[in-house]
């Protein structure tokens, strides 16, 4: 059973164009969040958005660039908490770009729910997750023009 978020999108644009929107701080802020991102491995940065107290999210995401392989792959850590300096979720975001006929396939995997995985019961009790995954598959299916590569 998976405990991660996956999205696959097809863009009818060259890989370089998508890459720019993923790695340029100003372009990134236009669709994701305000940030001080730099495409440098080891660079620590943050995203700033609105707080969502219901899930103990103060609106700040603390990140560190872990991997950059232009224009194919980028990954960073993704930590957040309620705003008292505590990290509640320490997760991982990985973007993968694959050239496809007439465009680019972008895969997002948001994973690494470390703390939850340490609790075995989480598996058994989290029956709702599979429903969620199926929902995502449904959304992807309507989006994708090519054959799906996820499983």
């Amino acid at each position, binding site marked *: 059973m998976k405990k991660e978020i996956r999205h696959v999108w097809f863009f009818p644009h060259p890989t370089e164009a998508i890459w720019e929107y993923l790695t340029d701080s100003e372009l990134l802020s236009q669709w994701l969040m305000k940030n001080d991102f730099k495409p440098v491995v080891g660079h620590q940065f943050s995203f700033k958005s609105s707080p969502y107290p219901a*899930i103990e*999210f103060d609106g700040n995401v603390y990140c560190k660039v872990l991997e950059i392989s232009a224009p194919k792959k980028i990954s960073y850590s993704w930590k957040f908490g309620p705003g008292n300096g505590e990290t*509640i*979720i320490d997760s991982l975001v990985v973007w993968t770009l694959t050239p496809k006929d007439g465009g680019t396939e972008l895969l997002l995997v948001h994973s690494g729910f470390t703390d*939850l995985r340490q609790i075995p019961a989480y598996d058994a009790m*989290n029956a709702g997750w599979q429903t*969620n995954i199926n929902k995502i598959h449904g959304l992807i299916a309507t989006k994708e023009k090519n054959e799906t590569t996820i499983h």
Partner: protein
Amino acid sequence: MKLQSTDPFQAIGDSNRRLMLRLLSKESLTINSLAQHFDMTRPAVSKHVKILYTAGFITIQDMGRERHCTLNQKGFHELQSWIDYFDQFWQTRLKKLEDLLNKKTKK
């Protein structure tokens, strides 16, 4: 009035409480036997147990002089809201990126 509840995210934000959940995922335990696994005072253990209880992760049952702790589904279901939130978050942000790129191409 219901008992004031604790946020499940706050409840699992502590390594002692996560260990308590792991121990309880194997078997139900009394607070006393749970306390044997930790180098802390009995009141400190009770405090953590209370937080897990108010966050919906465990139920507590009095049996004679002992209090038995058992894992409860409620807290785990609430954790799902975190995944749901970011799932939706990415979905809307990627749509925004798509719109941006399409607009740029049309120019």
